[in-house]
């Protein structure tokens, strides 16, 4: 139907009831006065002349289920009565929104699609009160949200407009973590494609490490197939790259190096974990077996990392500086073990 003359509409608008069709296809009759409180319905009636009979019932947006429509109409029924005081309205609203979080979300969605602004504001304020001050993990639990950001996306570099040395440190750590994730990804791809690693680069690294008074990794010959050995050397080169970095940075600021070494210490433990798996498995394709377990560990570590880094600014700094102190004491002990393990 094209635009309808207002004079034609008028008698139609006198009808007390209109027809609404909800998302599930069912149609119901609703008092027109109440339904018109929703701008969406109002528009549909005025602009399209819909709703006057069962055949041309107003199709409500998909988010409006019968249950939600009923709630919305309850809200409208109360508020469209003009004589109520602000106090009355407020106490009604406070009782009205007492429902579980899921229903609140659904109601927000339904009200939003019906363009019923006051109800959207009410439910949004309630939801805001619920999430305020909670940690990201708690939020995910309350709303059953998937943790669908990649580690890389979570490690967005911070803007360092004041050139704060702590922010520079954090960004460096982020970059290091991102690099490591990339490295893992690259290794994974390389393994899948059967890439060859240049032997020379490994030797160069070996001599570099040797020159720095570390135990020689040795030319480890394994009894396994060639493919395995190549994989091992690839893994080794990534481990060695990790190891060489802290050496360089140790020459710098002591607290900086503690933290960086501390973090890389964690990584090497992960790598040695996977290294062990390599040793155990004689077959070529070990990818699928390692990844879930290792992935979970990485996920948890990054989640913890990101959680700590994304919490309140002063708290974050406090936590970070204090964990840096802790790591300092364990660093030399486990570093020794880590090195030994890598030498297997």
């Amino acid at each position: 139907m094209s635009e309808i003359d207002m004079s034609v509409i008028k008698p139609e608008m006198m009808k007390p009831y209109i027809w609404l069709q909800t998302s599930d296809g069912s149609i119901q009759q609703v008092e027109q006065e109440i339904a018109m409180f929703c701008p969406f319905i109002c528009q549909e009636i005025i602009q399209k002349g819909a709703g006057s009979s069962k055949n041309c019932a107003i199709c409500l947006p998909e988010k409006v289920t019968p249950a939600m429509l009923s709630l919305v109409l309850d809200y409208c029924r109360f508020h469209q009565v003009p004589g109520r005081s602000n106090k009355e309205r407020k106490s009604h609203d406070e009782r009205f929104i007492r429902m579980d979080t899921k229903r609140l979300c659904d109601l927000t969605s339904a009200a939003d699609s019906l363009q019923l602004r006051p109800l959207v504001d009410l439910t949004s304020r309630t939801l805001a009160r619920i999430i305020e001050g909670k940690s990201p993990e708690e939020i995910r639990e309350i709303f059953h949200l998937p943790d669908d950001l990649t580690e890389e996306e979570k490690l967005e570099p911070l803007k360092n407009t004041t050139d704060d040395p702590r922010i520079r440190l954090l960004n460096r750590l982020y970059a290091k973590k991102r690099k490591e994730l990339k490295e893992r990804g690259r290794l994974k791809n390389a393994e899948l494609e059967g890439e060859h690693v240049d032997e020379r680069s490994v030797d160069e690294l070996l001599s570099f490490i040797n020159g720095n008074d570390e135990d020689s990794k040795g030319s480890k010959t394994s009894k396994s197939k060639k493919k395995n050995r190549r994989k091992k050397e690839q893994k080794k080169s990534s481990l060695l790259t990790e190891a060489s970095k802290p050496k360089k940075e140790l020459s710098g600021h002591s607290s900086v190096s503690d933290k960086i070494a501390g973090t890389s210490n964690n990584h090497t433990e992960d790598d040695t974990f996977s290294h062990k798996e390599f040793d155990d498995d004689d077959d070529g394709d070990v990818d699928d077996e390692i990844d879930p377990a290792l992935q979970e560990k990485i996920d948890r570590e990054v989640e913890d990392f990101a959680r700590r880094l994304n919490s309140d600014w002063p708290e974050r700094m406090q936590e970070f500086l204090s964990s840096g102190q802790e790591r300092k004491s364990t660093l030399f002990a486990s570093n020794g073990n880590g090195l030994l393990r890598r030498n297997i």
Partner: protein
Amino acid sequence: METKMKMKLEEEKNTIEVLPEECIANILSLTNPVDSCKFSIVSKDFCTASESDIVWEHFLPSDLISILSESQSGSSLLATSPSKKSLYLTLSDNPIIIDNGKKSFQLEKQSGKKIYMLSARNLSITWGDTPTYWDWITLPESRFQEVARLHYVWWFEIYGKINTRVLSSNTQYAAILVFKLMDPRDFDVIPVELTIAKFEERISTKQVWLDPNFDKERDEELLGLESPKPRSDGWLEIEIGEFFNAGVQDEVIQIGVVEIKVGRIKCGFILEGIEIRPKN
């Protein structure tokens, strides 16, 4: 096990994911800046929503555009900020100079409330225009073009005022004296009186020593008195007093730093300004 998984997936579908990004952004805008940043790692939807201008527009002061467009650095900041979030972060990290160099403006990171600093030029310093007593110099560590340097004076009197109209409403504010001491030999023996007044009526008054190294042990009376603390920008600060801005009506707050009772010369004082910022 499988049916459990299926049910969980169905459950997962029917929660906050039904909300469009704008709704999530709207909800976030009703929380606070710290939470909004934190929640960017909850999920993809939250991440996009937390970057949205809807959220940060809400945290920025409503009169921000009129404040910034008065100054050159402010207008260029407005023009070059890629998003409201970046505008918020820039303003809360660094002060910008407004009002022809007379004031600086900044946002408190946690809350988005306004912070001002009145430069020395924006204050009334008795004898400030007489070069024998005070002169005006440029220091690299100052955010302002000029700071006031005291040569010597008997009548040490500095006054500032601010209209609550420009401040964030419903906030407890503190006025802070920002200064340096070149030679504390006078200010470590002479206490200075700090006052806050509203409509000529005193709200608070206190006596402090401006010398941070001042030896409190010397005299029992002096033990409870405050001493200045160092700031991150290299200056010293001491709280002059507090006042509450309801934001209902315009009020002029008068701030005073005075020492005129002891008949001794005072010298070695450099004035950066008076900062007005929210108190905890």
